[in-house]
């Protein structure tokens, strides 16, 4: 897992027609998560049933096209609500997930980047056992985007996070027509191919050329472009962005959606549920846009104004994350924009400060 993205020179392909059968096989031994079409015609990462008619039915709903997936697969490791431990007067019982092999199949490159980003976060300053217990024995299969799932909001080429991944995957599939060319990114990925060798055939060299053509066309299909580097420089510099933050904070209706859908947001709140001497310590997704997020026990709040909290969010994503990790905290998936009721988004903010555009 540690050498993700390492290119191994094994050229393999898998027929699209065989993918469902592969998933059917995998579901027996792996906890297999794939994008499934819901009864509401949306696409969400969901766990495949392990066998029987339920599995067959679920396989019929697998959707590996370039569709908008509401929430990135981060919720597989970091659910919106999580029971941390149960307690009574005498003891504490941790609720850490027992180890299980997980296959996350059909991850978009930007989301794969985000998963790696969040992995690092939950290891950096402290080891979050609830998160890390879920990431053990995990295999990530990326499928690159031929056309951007959010045509007006995806801007991955600007962040160099897509439409195909350069690293951070175990396997990456490149859509070359009736088949996917398979790129191997880790030894775990290679082991996987070997374990399911019936499905993965050797590919000829010319497929590699075709894949390159597909990738370069895919990059051209991403129309929205912003200048991350310039944004970073501006934010590090002296330019007063107060007006920009003010415009955004005035428009914002404080739903928290941009944070909740962000694949790299990691903030959570911790609270206890108690009854008759027993209790559960729970954590759930939190958002830095809320007033209570930074309110101190005394009642004092260092960021009691909306504009301060807005500024903090952008500074954190673009400047702080970069200073700590060397890359932006935004993977340019575009979800913040498409899930914002009032059409605010990271791409718009970057455009605004780098191109002196008006409007949030």
């Amino acid at each position: 897992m540690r050498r993700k993205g390492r290119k191994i020179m094994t050229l393999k392909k898998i027929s699209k027609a065989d993918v469902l059968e592969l998933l059917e096989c995998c579901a027996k031994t792996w906890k297999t998560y794939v994008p499934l079409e819901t009864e509401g015609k949306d696409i969400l990462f969901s766990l495949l049933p392990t066998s029987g008619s339920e599995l067959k039915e679920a396989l019929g709903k697998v959707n590996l096209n370039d569709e908008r997936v509401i929430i990135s697969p981060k919720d597989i490791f970091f659910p919106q609500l999580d029971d941390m431990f149960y307690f009574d007067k005498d003891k504490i019982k941790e609720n850490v997930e027992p180890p299980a092999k997980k296959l996350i199949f059909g991850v978009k490159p930007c989301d794969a980047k985000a998963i790696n980003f969040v992995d690092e976060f939950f290891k950096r300053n402290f080891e979050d056992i609830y998160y890390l217990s879920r990431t053990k024995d995990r295999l990530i299969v990326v499928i690159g985007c031929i056309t951007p799932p959010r045509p007006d909001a995806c801007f991955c080429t600007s962040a160099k996070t897509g439409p195909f991944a350069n690293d951070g995957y175990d396997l990456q599939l490149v859509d070359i027509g009736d088949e996917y060319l398979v790129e191997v990114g880790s030894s775990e990925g290679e082991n996987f191919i070997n374990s399911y060798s019936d499905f993965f055939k050797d590919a000829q060299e010319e497929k590699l050329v075709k894949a390159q053509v597909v990738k370069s066309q895919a990059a051209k299909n991403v129309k929205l472009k912003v200048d991350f580097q310039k944004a970073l420089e501006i934010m590090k510099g002296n330019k007063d962005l107060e007006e920009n933050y003010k415009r955004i904070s005035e428009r914002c209706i404080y739903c928290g959606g941009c944070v909740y859908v962000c694949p790299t947001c990691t903030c959570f709140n911790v609270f206890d549920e108690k009854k008759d001497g027993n209790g559960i310590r729970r954590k759930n997704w939190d958002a830095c846009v809320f007033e209570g997020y930074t309110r101190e026990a005394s009642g004092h709040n260092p960021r009691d104004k909306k504009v301060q909290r807005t500024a903090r969010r952008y500074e954190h994503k673009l400047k702080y994350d970069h200073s700590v990790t060397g890359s932006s905290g935004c993977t340019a998936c575009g979800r913040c924009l498409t899930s914002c009721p009032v059409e605010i988004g990271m791409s718009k903010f970057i455009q605004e400060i780098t191109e002196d555009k008006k409007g949030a």
Partner: protein
Amino acid sequence: MQKILTTCIYCGCGCGLYLTEDKGIITGAYPSIKHPVSKGALCVKGWNSYEFVNSLDRLTHPLIKENGKFRKATWDEAIKLIAEKFKAFSAESGADSLAFLSSAKTTNEENYLMMKLARAVFKTNNVDHCARLCHASTVAGLAATFGSGAMTNSINEFQEADCYLITGSDTTSQHPLIGSRIINSVLNRGAKLIIVDPRKIELSKYAAVNLQQKNGTDVAWVNGMMHVIIKEGLQDEAYIQARTEGFAELKELVGEYTPEYVEKITTIPKEKLIEAARLYAVTKKAMIVYSMGITQHTTGVDNVKSLANLAMLTGHVGFPSTGVNPLRGQNNVQGACDLGALANVFSGYQKVTDAAAREKFEKAWGVSGLPANIGLTVTEIITAAGGGKVKGLYIMGENPMISDPDQNHVRKCLEKTEFLVVQDIFLTDTAQYADVILPGASYAEKDGTFTNTERRCERVRKAIEPLGEAKADWRILCDVAVACGYNGMNFSHPSEVMEEIRSVTPIYGGMRYDRLEPHGLQWPCPTLDHPGTPYLHKDKFSKGKGTFMPRPFIEPRENTDEEFNFILSTGRIYWHWHTRTLTGRTSTLEREAPVPYVEIHSEDAAEMGIKNKEKVRVTSRRGQIELQALITDRVVRKSCFIPFHYREAAANVLTINAIDPIAKIPEYKVCAVKVEKL
């Protein structure tokens, strides 16, 4: 981990969301992208609508009160006791000694069953619910003028309108996904906003015209706008001729409401009134949007009729992105009304006073002798229960201790109520007074439908089993009916209830479950091949010709005097929902607004020497509460605003139980109080 599509439990927007389930726990709520309202977004309440479901405070088994204390009981015991008591009251004191409060938080099917339980099983029309406290004025006022008491247009039509007249609706707080559409229209397309509200709201900063009227003077300013429009010849003559009646009477009545006269009543500067009137009249796609600020008055019906008059005068009804749009508060308050949980109508607004309607329902339900008298309404039921006229009271999913006006009166009444049944998911302040408590199911634990503010009947889907021994509310109602010896309520799934609803309710005629996939249908939807109705009154009004119903201005019931010198208005805030039963158990929401407060104007505060967050006492003729002062310029001088969510300082200790004579809605928006520094 399952992800189940359902409909949000909070406001009338009716957003489509997914509940995520893991090992029987609801672990999250995500917006649906394809749903026509949510479109990938939710407000903060929707995003956090999962947490309360798992609360350890949930009621998980029936309780019976013995010697003043609750003890665990079996379902058999509890249901049998209710059946015995209710049958005995009915036999001894008549059917109207029973009363039933249904719930705008429960499903359509459950509301239908509640009114069927009251009417078919117990032969009383004493069945009502909290719509009485929010949009009873709308139902009455719009039915009289247009023929249909519902929001005329659809949520997505907000994206195309060019002018909005918003009055008495804090839209971004209470209907955030409608408020956001308005913000986008103003900022992206330059749509114009007219805000008429005594208190500044989030949307005020976007308004082209801001009118801050004195509380309770709405008929006057609406009449004033119509005066200006007629004087300047901006009315739509062709529309008035072709589609309405009663214009001459209107013209005569509004004749005296000159801008000068209106300014005296409302304090709205005459120039601003004229500006607003012109803007609304000349914009083709202009929507009137209102909510509790219009309805919760002793003149609530008059207010609604006046807005209907204004819309007809300018030809703003019966087209996309126009209309009169009451925003319904609760997730299913529209449905609870549609399904007849009201004292005067069966489902589909078929009147109980109409012999043909009664005969139809008698036949469908296999009973005889359905009562013809109009039943008691919410506040009347509580008073009657306190006075002993109502002996058996069954409350499902309502919390009148916090939500009804004049809390001290409500408390006395509930204390005196001979036999009180409360069916809820939490032990609410109301449930404390119960003799029997029945644990219901949350929205995550049952199937059914909600009908949102735009009349969209959409599915609610079961994601987990009811907690502990709790049961789906529809099943409990069926069990009670069966225990009472009625065999017309042996349903095994809500879809069967909907089949019966379809057969007796013309506006729901086409709402078969399979047709509601994936995102519901808007009524009227009379037949199985009908596509539903995005906007009402196309080509002609539901009642034929629209009727102008001119109303004169009448003062609110309680005015300020030397002692009670502040006007109090109550309302809601973005972070909380109604009596805080759900949002108080949702960490993110509760954290944003943990304490009750009263908004006071900065100059009044300075005069009284009150500092921000300092505790003050607010007193009315009915009671007093102590709470934090929030110094602000949102309210005008000598007025204050208190969110009614908090049991710790319940605003309804102060409010007056004065009601509109037709709609019986209480005047939550105006009463006189005094404010004192402690």
